[in-house]
């Protein structure tokens, strides 16, 4: 009796989530899978066409492959860049200096503004052909680059926007670094390990769970990036920044190919799943948990 009451209360508390999950997450998730086997839009009624969307995507859609490749490149440029930088700065800030709070605030500020339209506008101006970045480079006698117009550079320029927001990951690394017992590092020093060896043998292994968490979240974020390509480059030049999220949006809401866009979104989902699963699977080999690790 008592126990059942308890259960009823618990369900009452989580009821909002149960409803929300079923209606706004699970239903759309399944529906989009079903849509992916159909041809339909707001104006057209739904017609089942089996695997035709997928076949078309993989055999005839050149833009699809270009976008897929650009997205993978973008993830590979942006995510490690951001994490390495975040860790490096967190290490420095952890050295018990003065003004830490001041620097931490300054470094965090870009993350607050992150993917806003205002920042996209800013980036477009700073990196335009005659923009501030090129003016700055001219002072060092570096020739002007066409940051957003050169197909080889545009993706890197967008990656820089992600790295600029390293503050969010840095804060997490800082919190994790605080938990590294200083006795361990001192013991290593006493045993004759230098700074660098202490870092690689003591600090880094203890940080791996945080790195793991960051890696997964940042990867997912990068895979679904939409604002930067849509607002800064419109996917150009030559589709070199036509990232996946933008392609799905255009197919669904511009070209009214909702079935096809659903199929594409499922490929994105599978891609994220594969990358995440790979990270999870590999994690026992490189993440270290003090309690021996319960996966």
């Amino acid at each position, binding site marked *: 009796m008592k126990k059942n009451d308890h*259960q009823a209360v*618990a*369900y*009452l*508390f*989580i009821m*909002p*989530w149960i409803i*929300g*999950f079923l209606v*706004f997450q699970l*239903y*759309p*998730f399944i*529906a*989009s899978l079903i*849509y992916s086997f159909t041809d339909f839009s707001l104006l057209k009624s739904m017609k089942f066409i089996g695997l035709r969307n997928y076949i078309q995507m993989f055999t005839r859609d050149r833009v699809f492959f270009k976008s897929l490749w650009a997205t993978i490149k973008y993830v590979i440029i942006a995510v490690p860049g951001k994490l390495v930088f975040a860790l490096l700065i967190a290490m*420095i*800030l952890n*050295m018990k*200096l003065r*003004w830490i709070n001041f620097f*931490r605030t300054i*470094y*965090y*500020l*870009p993350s*607050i*503004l992150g993917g*806003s*339209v*205002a920042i996209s*506008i*800013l980036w477009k*101006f*700073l990196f*335009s052909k005659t923009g501030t970045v090129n*003016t*700055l480079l001219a*002072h060092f006698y570096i020739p002007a680059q066409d940051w957003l117009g050169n197909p080889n550079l545009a993706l890197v320029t967008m990656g820089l926007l992600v790295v600029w927001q390293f503050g969010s*990951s840095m804060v*997490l690394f*800082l*919190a*994790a670094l605080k938990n590294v017992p200083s006795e361990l590092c001192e013991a290593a020093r006493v045993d004759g390990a230098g700074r660098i060896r202490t870092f690689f043998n003591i600090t880094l292994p203890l940080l791996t769970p945080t790195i793991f968490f960051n890696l997964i*979240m940042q990867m*997912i974020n990068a895979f679904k990036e*939409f604002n930067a390509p849509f*607002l800064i480059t419109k996917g150009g030049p030559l589709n070199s920044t036509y990232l*996946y*999220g933008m392609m799905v*949006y255009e197919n*669904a809401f511009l070209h009214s190919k*909702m079935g096809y*866009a*659903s199929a594409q*979104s499922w490929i*994105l*989902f599978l891609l*994220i799943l594969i990358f995440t699963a790979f990270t999870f699977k590999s994690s026992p080999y490189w993440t270290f948990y003090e309690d021996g690790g319960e996966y």
Partner: protein
Amino acid sequence: MKRKRRLTITYMMLSLIGIVMIYPLLWMVSASFKTNREIFSSLSLIPTEILWNGYSKGWQGSGQYTFATYFSNTFYMVLPTVLLTVVSSLLVAYGFARFRFRGKNIMFTLVIASLMLPTEVIIIPRYMLFNKLGWLNTYLPFIIPAAFATYSFFIFMLIQFIRGIPRELDEAARIDGCGPWGTLINIILPLCKPALVSCVIFQFVWRWNDFLNPLIYISSVKKYPMSLALRMALDVTDTINWNQTMAMSVLAMVPPILLFFLCQKYFVEGVASTGIKG
């Protein structure tokens, strides 16, 4: 002596990075006072010829509506969403963190799994659903899902936080005659303050900056939030003065920054103790 020199170098490096981080933002503020020519050519943050009208002219907007409309629209869209997110997420997190019930493990796994579900996958059926319900071109697609705790990130964050609150406090409250609800209000809620403030900041900033969802759900200019209004300004101002677009972009960044500075103390506490991303 050697230590001192190393320290100086470290500070110089930190300051240099700080300048790189903050310069673009300051540049934007200064660009809102510059002429078109100077926006593109000059590195200096101080304009040689100051244009004072960027803010007043920019505020008038390019069409029928001023930025007063866009600003208040954004608040109408964001504030209820943030409030409902925090309330519903706290209730759900409390349920997960303090009760045992059948199916808990599976449900918790689903909360985590939905964290990884990209928006792109569910956005088309959601659009169709909201279309059927007649919610398009209203703020309901933002507000109603928030009331049902669909921003799983916050549930996860609050569960982690509540788990760190000693259960003995709950016990003590129970002995004093508090039911589950009383415990939540009297014990958990006050102790969760840092985490709740973090939730408010994150959700406010994310909803404030959100562009994709308004782009899909909001079609009439009258209901545009800031993000759509700025994008419109970006598209139509090819011939007009850029300082106005810059001025409005600066204004759009003010509320998130203000909130961040006001709540910074709680925020750092909240993030540090839950140990999750920002």
